[in-house]
């Protein structure tokens, strides 16, 4: 495109105006941006230039007076109405064209369900695994189907130049195709851009672009098997900071109703009063209930603002959070046994470290947890094949992004 030259002129070159273009649509947005910007620069220079020139040339000074000139000229005025009109029409059509392609996702897009809640993001991947970061595959059209559980939010990925509001009781969507894989440890920003309260500015997620479908599947598989990520208490701590708990609950034992919820520290094993006058001793069951049915028992002095985590945290993750709370309260936390059984754990880990060939062992314990865990086994079996055709595959087998889906089943 000859117009690309606009973005390499000095104004643009001395300062990187944008985040790097990391999606197929980004370049066209930037091109229109620079087109408008250079038109603006032209008219800006024209207006400032004439203004400066007139102020200097016709400045009041002894011996100088205003000279007569026409006080209207229809031809001139029509000209400077029509030329801007034509220019804005061009901008309008160009902008609309870009927008229309932004709104129509390719039919074979890979779908990820997004849930926005005060104040965290949950991304649900095929198979039901939910994570707080957005993982996508390079060169694969990806469609985000979004909803909100409470107030308005807006999902924004500057590097992809995409944005869409998340509205309660309504599905919205956007799509993009990432063009650059992120390096190990690197990530792109994902912001919330619709004001949503205290935690608005920290409602953040990382966007990780995997190089290939195989890499994505490996991540999906590793993610589903929690013991690889540490002890339950460690996993619980990660979940605490990444899944929205930290926005309201402190871990230092100080209760602060203004922050939203009671501290994770200092209540375990103690009897707590609720707004309806009842009281319960805080144990594993109570924590589980609070996560899944938060409105059932609201602690006295607090507001009923916690969103439910049903369908967003699996049994393993709830277990991890319970153990994390225990560890904060000087109660010895348990290991993964209640979730994954014992004995087989070592074998599973070993098998995993080894490679993708032995799937039988991992599938068994994982299957108890949630459908997601089934997936890595299949994925492992077909991963080589998948490597060969990274683009076409998942979308085709992925009609609605529902649970238990198998991206490669087609």
């Amino acid at each position: 495109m000859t117009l690309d030259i606009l973005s390499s002129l000095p104004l643009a070159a001395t300062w990187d105006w944008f985040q790097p273009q990391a999606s197929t649509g980004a370049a066209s947005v930037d091109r229109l941006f620079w087109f408008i910007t250079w038109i603006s620069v032209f008219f800006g220079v024209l207006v400032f230039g004439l203004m400066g020139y007139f102020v200097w040339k016709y400045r009041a000074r002894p011996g100088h007076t205003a000279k007569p000139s026409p006080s209207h000229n229809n031809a001139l005025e029509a000209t400077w109405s029509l030329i801007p009109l034509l220019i804005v029409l061009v901008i309008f059509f160009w902008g609309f064209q870009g927008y229309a392609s932004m709104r129509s996702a390719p039919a074979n897009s890979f779908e990820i369900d997004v849930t926005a809640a005060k104040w965290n993001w949950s991304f649900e991947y095929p198979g039901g695994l939910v994570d707080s970061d957005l993982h996508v595959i390079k060169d694969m059209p990806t469609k985000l189907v979004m909803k909100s559980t409470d107030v308005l939010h807006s999902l924004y990925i500057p590097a992809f130049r995409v944005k869409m509001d998340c509205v309660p009781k309504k599905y919205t969507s956007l799509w993009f195709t990432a063009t650059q894989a992120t390096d190990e440890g690197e990530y792109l920003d994902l912001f919330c851009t619709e004001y949503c309260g205290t935690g608005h500015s920290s409602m953040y997620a990382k966007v990780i672009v995997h190089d290939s479908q195989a890499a994505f599947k490996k991540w999906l598989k590793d993610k589903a098997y929690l013991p690889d990520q540490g002890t339950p208490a460690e996993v619980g701590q990660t979940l605490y900071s990444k899944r929205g708990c930290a926005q309201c609950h402190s871990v230092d034992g100080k209760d602060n109703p203004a922050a939203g919820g009671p501290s994770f520290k200092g209540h375990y094993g103690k009897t707590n009063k609720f707004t309806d006058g009842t009281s319960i001793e805080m144990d594993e069951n109570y924590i589980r209930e609070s996560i899944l049915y938060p409105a059932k028992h609201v602690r006295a002095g607090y507001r009923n603002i916690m969103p439910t985590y049903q369908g967003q945290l699996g049994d393993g993750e709830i277990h991890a959070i319970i153990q994390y709370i225990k560890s904060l309260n000087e109660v010895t936390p348990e290991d993964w046994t209640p979730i994954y059984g014992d004995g087989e754990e070592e074998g599973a880990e070993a098998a995993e470290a080894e490679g993708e060939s032995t799937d039988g062992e991992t599938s068994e314990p994982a299957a108890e947890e949630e459908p997601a865990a089934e997936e890595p086994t299949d994925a492992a079996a077909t991963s080589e094949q998948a490597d060969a055709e990274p683009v076409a595959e998942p979308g085709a087998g992925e009609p609605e992004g529902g649970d238990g889906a198998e991206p490669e089943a087609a």
Partner: protein
Amino acid sequence: MITQAKDNPSYNDYDGRRVAIPEGPSYLSNAPGTGLGKWFESWAFTLDHKRIGVMYLAGITFFFLVAGIMALLVRAELWTPSADFLSLFSSQDTSTPDGKENAAKDAYNVIFTLHGAIMVFLFIIPSIPAALGNVFLPLMLGAKDVAFPRLNLASFHIYILGAFFFIAALITTGLDTGWTFYTPYSVTTSGPVIFATMGVFILGFSSIFTGLNFIVTVNTMRPKGMTWFKMPLFLWGIYATSIIQVLATPVLAITVLLLTVERAFGLGIFDPAKGGDPVLYQHFFWFYSHPAVYIMILPAMAVISEVIPTFSRKHIFGYRFIALSSIAIALLGFLVWGHHMFTSSQSTLAVAIFSFLTFSVSIPSAIKVFNWLATMYKGDIHLNTPMCYALSFIALFTIGGLTGLHLGALSVDIHLHDTYFVVAHFHYVMMGGTLIAFLAGVHYWWPKMFGKMYNELWARIACLIIFVGFNMTFFPQFLLGTKGMPRRYAQYEKMPGVDGEPFSAETIAEFTTLHRWSTAGSMILGVGLFLAAGVLLVSFWSKRRAPANPWGAATMEWKCCSPPTAHNFETNPWVGSPYVYDDLVYDEDEEGYVELLPDLTRTTKPAEQPVAT
């Protein structure tokens, strides 16, 4: 004819053609010996449009100060990437790092909300129409007062009442919805939303009354000889504004009333859980609030259309285009509200139509800018303070207007929506436009309103500092926006918690640099504004009395003494063309301009003899 005492022997009579302007007691002064109580009454219950205007001026200046301090606090918080500074202003428990961070975030949300809400509802909307318009609309018509003086007073009292509700929300600290009160957040938040929305409801009536009053005044009280197209352009601007106020404000009133009922009784119009639609609120809200943008900018353009010709000593260029473009903007402005909602799940068709209409409304604004420039052509340009502000206005409004093209273009808007690019854009228009024009107007009419001249040198220095500070504050925000910095962020470094995961490192570094430029600029801007206010206030103690017509303007408000008497004109003024300066000559003794009646004695032979029939 009443003539004034001519003690000065060098008084220039200009062959008896000089139009004498009789002096009289200032409208600001009371009869000698008036007690404090009577003095208060004489102001609080006055029917004099000028006194009401001056009270509005004092009121909006106070609220501008309050909201301006809020703005500086917001900027101070953004100096560092973390949420820390504003926890100093929080009553929450800040003894732990978590508590401190949350306290700062909450305080930030409250402060930016109050900044926006106070600036919009208590400052910008009433600034030029209610303060300057009240004083000068009747004067420009050569009239004694507005059509309904009591309604005028009522509108001021309602303004004070509405402001009281707003201040109540301020004192109870916790209104954190943003000035837009978007549902469902505003229905669920714990802040005193009802107080604030009732405040908006009441202020709306003030706005409607003022608009109605001005429409009737312009329609019925124009003097003989002043046809529609011989009105000063300030009146056209105020007239167009009044139409919007009368038509659009009721929609806002209904919207906030619905919101109040929704919150108080759970009506369910906007609540998705009850079958309502939260996006419907946005439609209602912007149906008023977009036209409200023109309530803010049209009077600003109107002031500039007065200042530029006066200080260029040239007839305004393209009078009809400017006058009609005000009306065009007022009408088209009703049809573009959807451009605030390009990312809120509207249909593609609706989005396309709103984008198209948005571009169409940009043309009348462009016409005005070109016409102002053409007015200066071959002029005799005096760089007095009002002209300096007018030139600042043209520069800043041009930048604000051109960046509107980026936001109107659909695909680019998706990227820029709700980022700092938008923040920069509307500050260039609202502050670079309306506030600068307001300052131009205040400096232009100050001698007439208060009968004193301010110090030109210092006023111009203040103007320069404001211009530099303004650009330093808001230009970096365009860059922040293209980089992707979202609006309304209390911090820009990490996810929640003491060791929350950080944003990407490059992002934090770039945002920090740009925010620091902006914050530093805002402090300079603050200094400039204080200096400008100081220069004006000091003039009250100045010995330099203002002449009736210090700038040589041809509109009628300069044809009464400075300051005017209670009834404005002691004798009926001569209605001339508002932009012809030929008969105004500078008089050294007056230190101002005097108007001469046209010299009708024929000195030269006509170029052509009439053709004999």
